[in-house]
């Protein structure tokens, strides 16, 4: 007798689908738990962690932001291999504004976010027509080129970088700023992508000819998506500049390009929540493995492979399915 797995929506999912969600606390709790969980979780973590792990939390949040930014580009049909471009541009802009003009972080971070987004969009607009791997290659190369330019021309401190930058007012300020940014981006982007605007973006990924055929200029929409994504990346960079109190060539390092992709893939593409989840697994994992020295990368790699083989859809998709559906084995009749 052959069997197959059958998936059925939980009763409570159907019951809480519409206005009926207001029927009882149980239904309302069912709907609000997944939304409240990251908010409460982050707040609790911010209190419970030691100073060292609070620093790790900062880094986790920054990578989560970069992964979200990667995810929105991927959903618009642009596979970026160069999140370091966004990160590095934001970082350098904040550093320059702080070092040369003496502007405080409260000014440099918002300005670096906006102009960083604008600058990166400017870098990539000429290649928006490229598709697939060709676009990816350009995004990979630009940050590497910028590093060499800084090295060769010795601008902005050259290989030494710029140090002695102004810190944020307090440790708590750092923590809550990045947590607020992360939550706002996560929920904001989820809402954005389920709006009609988001539908057009996803449409470009699915079938760009069909979108063009609706009289929609897909390059303008791609540009908007690019600006949104690169602003988020630039914010992450500007923020980290004022954490490390230093900006230099490492901000264009490959880590900032590759780790966000790994986080998004492990967590689940297309949900943003998956990207955050992925960052919350991979970055601390890398910290824990630090004690292993050289073997760290090996273990890290093995974990990555295990994750992707065991749950290829991504952890978030898996959890989401378990939350909404029950599975059972049924016999297949011949």
């Amino acid at each position, binding site marked *: 007798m052959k069997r197959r797995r059958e998936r059925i929506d939980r009763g409570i999912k159907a019951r809480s689908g519409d206005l009926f969600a207001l029927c009882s606390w149980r239904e309302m709790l069912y709907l609000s738990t997944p939304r409240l969980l990251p908010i409460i979780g982050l707040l609790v973590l911010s209190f419970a962690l030691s100073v060292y792990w609070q620093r790790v939390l900062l880094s986790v949040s920054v990578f989560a932001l970069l992964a979200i930014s990667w995810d929105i580009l991927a959903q618009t049909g642009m596979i970026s291999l160069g999140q370091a471009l966004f990160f590095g541009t934001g970082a350098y802009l904040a550093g320059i504004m702080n070092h040369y003009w003496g502007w405080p972080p409260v000014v440099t971070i918002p300005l670096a976010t906006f102009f960083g987004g604008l600058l990166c969009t400017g870098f990539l607009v000429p290649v928006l027509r490229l598709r697939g791997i060709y676009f990816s290659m350009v995004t990979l190369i630009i940050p590497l080129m910028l590093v060499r330019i800084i090295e060769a021309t010795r601008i902005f401190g050259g290989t030494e970088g710029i140090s002695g930058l102004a810190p944020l007012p307090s440790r708590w300020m750092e923590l809550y700023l990045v947590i607020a940014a992360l939550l706002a981006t996560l929920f904001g982007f989820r809402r954005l992508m389920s709006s*009609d*605007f988001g*539908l*057009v973006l*996803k*449409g470009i990924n*699915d*079938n760009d*000819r*069909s*979108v*063009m*055929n*609706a*009289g*929609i*200029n*897909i390059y303008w929409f791609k540009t908007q998506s690019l600006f949104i994504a690169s602003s988020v990346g630039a914010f992450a960079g500007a923020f980290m500049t004022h954490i490390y109190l230093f900006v230099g060539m490492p901000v264009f390092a490959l880590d900032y390009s590759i780790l966000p992709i790994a986080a998004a893939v492990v967590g689940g593409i297309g949900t943003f929540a998956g990207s955050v989840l992925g960052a919350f697994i991979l970055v601390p994992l890398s910290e824990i493995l630090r004690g292993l020295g050289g073997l760290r990368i090996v273990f890290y790699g093995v974990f990555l492979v295990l994750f992707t083989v065991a749950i290829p859809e991504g952890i978030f998709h898996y959890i989401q399915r378990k939350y909404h559906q029950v599975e059972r084995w049924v016999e297949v009749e011949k």
Partner: protein
Amino acid sequence: MSPSPLLRIFGLSKNFGGVQAINDLSMELVEGELLGLIGPNGSGKTTAVNLITGFVKPTEGEITFRDRDITGWAPYKIVRLGIARTFQMVKPFYQLPAYKNMIIPLYSPRVKQMTGGKYGDRDAKALDLLEEVGFERDAFVAYKAASALPQGYLKRLELAKAIALNPDLMILDELFSGLSLAEVASIVPIIEKLRQEGKTIIMIEHRLKELFRIADRIVVLNFGEKIAEGTSDEVMESDAVKKAYLGAEA
């Protein structure tokens, strides 16, 4: 004096590498006309449509719409002028419900122009348009995922997406292909209704019997060249057409 043509194609040519897909094609289309574009496989019908709608840039020649030169324009600009097309291969967003598939055309700047700067309630508009092409409102078909729809409904969805843009000229690329006789019979009235509304239509078809019943004029292509033009009876009498369809001996 005859009215100035809605669409005018003059000396249009396109070659892909060494292949001459369209060779010196000229034709005119007056407002309110239904033109059937036929020809054997690979005769350049779809390329002609791609050239008109801007998806492919011509090697030579000129296309004007309402006396405006639109040769080599980007597809989205051409749509905004009022030319909409359907695709031969329907590729809806399968995971979305049928009516959500209508959101993208309803997001078009063309729709915004027509409604005076307001988009309005897109979901409601989508359901209205789908009802127009035969998605019965009380049967929940419009709420089904596109992946669960039969071919007939997918073609209707494709048609509705073009209607949503409120075009002056509609180009329907093999709308009837893959449909049963009954399905074709149920789509024909929709096209007739569009004509009553004054739309100009170009239909590419292999289903000649159904096409001849509704078309005013037929243009026959073979190897990228126009080999005949006229009413359905006239073109079927033409020797060149017999030769193209049936082979040299006919």
